[in-house]
C-alpha cells in the first residue's frame, strides 16, 4: 500500500463536479482530504491518495484527463 500527497487544482468548469468521489468509485484508491479552498470559480484540494502504486497512477492520470491540475504538494520542485 502506497500513499501519495498531492494538490488538485480545479478549473471553473469542474468546481461543481464530484471529481474526487468519482475517482474513488472508479479506482481502488482511498482519498483523504487534509486542506482545501474552493470558491465559486476556483478551487484547490490537498489530499492523500492511498492504494497500490499502479492504481494511484491510473487514478491521477484519470483526474488529469478530466481537467484537474495535479501537483506535488511542495509546489514546483524544479528550481531556477
Amino acid at each position, binding site marked *: 500500500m502506497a500513499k501519495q500527497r498531492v494538490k488538485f487544482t480545479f478549473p471553473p468548469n469542474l468546481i461543481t463536479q464530484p471529481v474526487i468521489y468519482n475517482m474513488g468509485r472508479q479506482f481502488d484508491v482511498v482519498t483523504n482530504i487534509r486542506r482545501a479552498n474552493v470558491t465559486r470559480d476556483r478551487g*484547490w484540494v490537498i489530499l492523500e491518495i492511498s492504494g497500490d502504486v499502479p492504481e494511484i497512477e491510473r487514478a491521477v492520470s484519470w483526474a488529469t484527463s478530466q481537467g484537474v491540475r495535479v501537483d506535488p*504538494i*511542495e*509546489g514546483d*520542485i*524544479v528550481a*531556477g
Partner: protein
Amino acid sequence: MGRLRGLVCRECGHLYGIQPIHVCEFCFGPLEVAYDYDLIRSTVSREAIAAGPPTIWRYKALLPVDDEPIIETYAGFTPLVKAENLGRLLGLNELYVKNDTVNPTFSFKDRPVAIAATRARAFGFDTIACASTGNLAAAVAACGARASMRAVVFIPADLEQSKIINTAIYEPTLVAVTGNYDEVNRLCSEIADKYGWAFVNINVRPYYSEGSKTLAFEVAEQLGWRAPDHAIVPTGSGSMFTKIWKGFQELHKVGLIEAPATHMTVAQAAGCAPMVDAYDRRTLNVAPVKPATVAKSLAIGNPADGYYSLKIIKETGGHAVRVSDAEIVEGMKLLARTEGIFGETAGGVSVAVARKLAEGGHIGRDEVTVIYVTGNGLKTPEAVAEHLAPPITIAATMEAFEETLEQDHSGAAAVA
C-alpha cells in the same frame, strides 16, 4: 530547550522537533523553523555580528544550526552598492543594489544551500540533491564538492550546454531527465520520497529556505542597522521573498533594528507572473501558469510560497509588478551601463520593476530602496546577446583607428 524551538506548521501551528521533514503530518502544511527570540536577544549584538566572518555565518545566531561544524562556502556578505547613476536616472536619491552576483557559484542559491548541507550532514545524510534548471544545480554541486558530500543533481534533458557546464565542472552525479516540466517535477518528488537523500528544497527545505534571510540581515547591517523603505525582490517560488521579510522582522524581534516598515514588492516576468495575476485579482490564491519567459530562473509556474508572499505584500503595503521580456533585457542593460553590474535575467526583472514603480510615483525620492540582483549575467548571456552593439572592427593601423574614433561620438568624447 535551546535557541531552536523546532519546526512549526505554517497552517495549523503544530510543533515538531528539529528533523528532516518539511510537511505537517496533520494538514500537509509547510513547516518553518521556529526560534526562541528572547533567548537569542539576550546573546546577540551588533558588535558580535560585526566580529564574525564576512559570510552568511556571521548571522549564525539566527540560522537553523546548532553546534555542528558549519560548511563554509564563503557565500554571502556581498556588496550593497549605492546606485548613484541608476538612482539619478530613476529620480531616486537613496537607491541601492544588493549585488549577489558575486557569490561562489554566482547566485544567491549558495546561501540556502550551505545551510541545507550543514544541517543535512548533522542529520547524518551523505548525499545532497536537487532538481534545477541552473542556479540551484550549480550551488548544490559546488557545495557537495566543498563538503565532501555526494551531490545528485537532476536537470531537464533540454537544458542549455552552458548551464550544464556550470554544474558538471563540480562533478556531481548529473541526471538529465527527458519529459516535460511537470513530469520532471513529479519524478523528483517521488525520488525524494523514496531515497534517503537530503533534497535541499524538499525534505530539508525548512532549513534551506532560512538561508535567504541573510539577504535581509546583510542589507540591514550594510544600511547601518535599519530595514529599507522598499525592497524589490525577483520572485519565482516566493521562498526568498518571504524569507527576506522574515529576516527583517527577526532583526527587530532580537533588538537589532527598529520595527521594519519595508514595502515588499514581488517582481515577476510577464511570461510567468502567477503572483502578480493573483494580486491583480485581489486574491491570495495563486492559479498555476505555464512559464514562457526569458527569465528562466524565475520560471516557477506553481509557486510553493505564492500565498504567503501575497499575504506579505498586503501586510506591508507592497506591490506585485510584472515586466515583459523586452523590459527585462533593457533592465539588464541599464544596470550594466549605469552601475557596472552584469546581473542575470532575474536582476533585469528587479531593475525594470524598480523603474516602473519609480515612474508610477510609488517610491518617494528620498526613500531607501533596495533592488535585489541575485544572479550573475554570465549565466544567461544568450538573453542579451542579440541586443548588444557589435564591436567595431578595424585594420591594425592608427589611421583606421582614428577614422573610427572620429565617427564614434561617445569614443571621441571620452578621449577629449
